[in-house]
């Protein structure tokens, strides 16, 4: 507003009696005080920031370790590898099926052999009740 111009009795921002931006003078004073506080925030110590970063790194490391444990193969996979892997499993399965089949429906040659005709001590080539064995039992 130009100097000397009438203001019709209205309050102006520069009127010292109504200067609401002065600290402590009404709402404007409080606003100035709050603005001053906003402009000068308490600064954290570098040591605190370093500790927070270290916590962050520790949580990341913890997570990496957990993920590594999760991605480890199960115990049975190690055993399978020791046996020769999946192909050996196929061989083992075939042998098991063959054994089961022989047990349920033995072929003729095997049946006569298993019936005892061929299963004599002479056939086996040893005497299970030899003197030596009896001596050991006593």
């Amino acid at each position, binding site marked *: 507003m130009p100097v000397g111009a009438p203001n019709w009795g209205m309050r102006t921002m520069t009127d010292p009696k109504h*200067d609401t931006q*002065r*600290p*402590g*003078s*009404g*709402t404007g*004073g*409080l*606003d100035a*005080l*709050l603005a*001053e*506080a*906003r402009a*000068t*925030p*308490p*600064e*954290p*110590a570098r040591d*605190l*920031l370093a*500790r*927070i*970063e270290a*916590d*962050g*790194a520790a*949580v*990341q490391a913890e*997570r*990496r370790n957990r993920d590594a444990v999760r991605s480890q193969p199960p115990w049975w996979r190690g055993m399978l590898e020791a046996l020769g892997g999946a192909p050996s499993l196929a061989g083992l399965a075939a042998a098991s099926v063959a054994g089961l089949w022989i047990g349920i429906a033995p072929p003729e040659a095997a049946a006569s052999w298993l019936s005892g005709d061929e299963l004599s001590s002479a056939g086996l080539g040893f005497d299970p009740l030899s003197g030596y064995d009896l001596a050991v039992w006593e």
Partner: protein
Amino acid sequence: MAFDAMAQTEEDRLIAAYAAGDPVAARALTARLAPRIYAHAMRMLGGDSAEAEDVTQDAMLRLWHAAESWEPGAAKASTWLFRVTSNLCIDRLRKRRGGPALDDVPEPVSDAPSAVAALQSRARTDALQDALMRLPDRQRQAVILRHIEGLSNPEIAQIMDIGPRAVESLTARGKRALEALLAGRRAELGYEDDD
């Protein structure tokens, strides 16, 4: 894109990078969020730096743990952290009613000529802090978040778990109480000399 949305996108990106194991993201998130959280804790706890440090570290640790299941776009990390920090501060304030008064904190003394102005500024800051500490916890929290941290009412409503109207009411009552508390301290704080 609005500034708030940009800030949220950046925070989400950093949290995702942190969760993926990026060590730089941890540093960036610390530099971006920890100072604001620390300042808020200091103001909520009446200038007790040791407690404010504990609260800040605890709040950030919760962020590190939450990062893995963080949902992008769901909440702003800073809003989430303000909420965690405010709750931690209020818990501590409830536990330590009757702790050391602000007046008991020793003032730094200096012979430098500019020290007078610095002391007056410090005195004003302390007077405000002292007045803030005389407010009920929720009023103080609302006034700090609105008028010192500069957050919006909807953000404060999220942090305080109340409606925006309740935020307006709390901040208005808080400001009125602050005005009343500071009314008699103008001369003491050198307001006349500063103008």
